């Protein structure tokens, strides 16, 4: 579903953001991306939703290649992906339901179909009673739930989450994580970049560790996992391995 083939990304100033990334993510998979700040987690996610294109190699997502995709094809690809961030990225002057409906309106969903879809997804994330609230009237956890609802409303095949719990307290973090687990269980793949190693340790999901733009550990890649185990700590720590 998502394939990185020898992907490298170098910015114009010569900074290397990703180096030789080979990666496969299957449907329904839940994948953690961990690593220190600047390791390349967000860049790797940006490559997935084609916000940046690699300088070398190829990213292929649901049949769309980073080498040949037009802007219009990228826009259409994103309609099948859900993307959430640490800072929620909600429209402050619109209510919860308007924020969610916005994702449907901008891709030309018929107006008559919007209310049902919005209600369904707001119920799924536990915000059915707050449809008319403005984002500033909600807690951080609730705002992230709105962002998740907006990401889910188009029934994506993958949910990309860049530090979704970074701004939340422990209780809200647990709630959001449980929601992401439920989403994964219902068949949507989840790729989540996080600094929260507690969440990673307590779950059984595939974990990929990045450092200086390269993959240094991948629990889903037996060869690499074994090599890392031979050289250092077997469990991901968020620190340099080796």
């Amino acid at each position, binding site marked *: 579903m998502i394939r990185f083939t020898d992907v490298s990304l170098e910015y114009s100033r010569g900074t290397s953001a990703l180096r030789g990334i080979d990666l496969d993510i299957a449907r329904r998979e839940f994948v953690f991306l961990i690593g220190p700040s600047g390791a390349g987690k967000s860049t790797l996610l940006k490559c997935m939703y084609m916000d940046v294109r690699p300088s070398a190699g190829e990213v292929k997502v649901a049949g769309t290649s980073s080498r040949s995709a037009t802007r219009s094809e990228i*826009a*259409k690809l*994103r309609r099948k992906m859900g993307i959430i961030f640490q800072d929620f*990225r909600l429209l402050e*002057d619109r209510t919860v339901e308007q924020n969610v409906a916005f994702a449907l309106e*901008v*891709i030309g969903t018929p107006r008559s179909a919007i209310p049902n879809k919005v209600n369904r997804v707001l119920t799924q994330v536990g915000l059915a009673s707050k449809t008319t609230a403005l984002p500033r009237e909600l807690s951080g956890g609730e705002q992230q739930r709105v962002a998740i609802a907006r990401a889910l409303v188009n029934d994506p095949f993958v949910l990309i989450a860049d530090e979704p719990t970074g701004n939340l307290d422990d209780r809200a973090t647990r709630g959001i994580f449980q929601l992401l687990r439920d989403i994964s269980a219902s068949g949507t793949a989840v790729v989540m970049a996080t600094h929260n190693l507690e969440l990673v340790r307590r779950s059984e999901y595939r974990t990929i560790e990045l450092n200086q733009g390269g993959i240094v550990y991948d629990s889903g890649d037996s060869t690499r996992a074994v090599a890392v185990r031979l050289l250092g700590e077997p469990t991901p720590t968020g620190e340099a391995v080796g």
Partner: protein
Amino acid sequence: MSLSVREAVVAFRRTPLLSILSITTIAFSLFAFGLFGLVVLNIRKALDTVEARVEIRAFAFDGTDAGSIANAASEIQRLPGVLGVVIITPEEALERAKADMGEFSDVFEASFLPTALEVQLQPGHRDPESVKRVANRLRSFEFIEDVRYGEDWITQLHRIRNIAGATGLVLGLAFAIVAMIIIGATIRMALLARAKEIAIMRLVGATDGFIRRPFLIEGAIKGICGGVVALGLTWVATQVIQHYLAFETVFFDARLAAIGVAAGALIGLLGSAASVNRQLRRV
């Protein structure tokens, strides 16, 4: 499309001050353009009045028979651009001379004046080349002794008309470019103010065309509003000029006014398009 229109209208409500500022600056650019347009229009109108008096007079030798003159008049009448040909007999010429110069009326005698052909030209055929062509045809008749049409005067008149037209075109283009730059800048401000919204649109899969549309509509609406305000200001200016300077001016007719507002819309659209395209490439 309805969402794009709604977004464009909502943008006005969200940033009313910026929208009013945009419309005001566009209106003043177009107002300057409109004022100059009005000056050109009035110059052209004045020149048209003067040009309407352009005529060619051909004087026949004494003793030329009336039939030859009538044949020549008929032939000249059929030339392209000729409005009318009048044969002035010596007697008629005498009457005119007496009427024009009453105090010297005793000096003139009919036998002293030649038979003449007076040729009037249609509007659009009063340029030096057309006048000269008809004059040369008149000269080619053997019985024509002299042809007069104020060659220098017509050339000068035409030159003034061309200069006014060219200056109007150049200044009009300059003001249109200024208006476009202003609209582009205001749309860029609106884009920056809505950068977050655009980023979200991108994330959820909106195409460039969809993102662009509300801004183009916004630009066109601002252009139309600016055009209407400019038209109003120009009208007020003409009223003030007429009132205080007692100078009769001509205002734009409905067609020109509509063209002016449509030009405002086009300028708004082009200014937005340039700005949005540049900005979207960066996002």
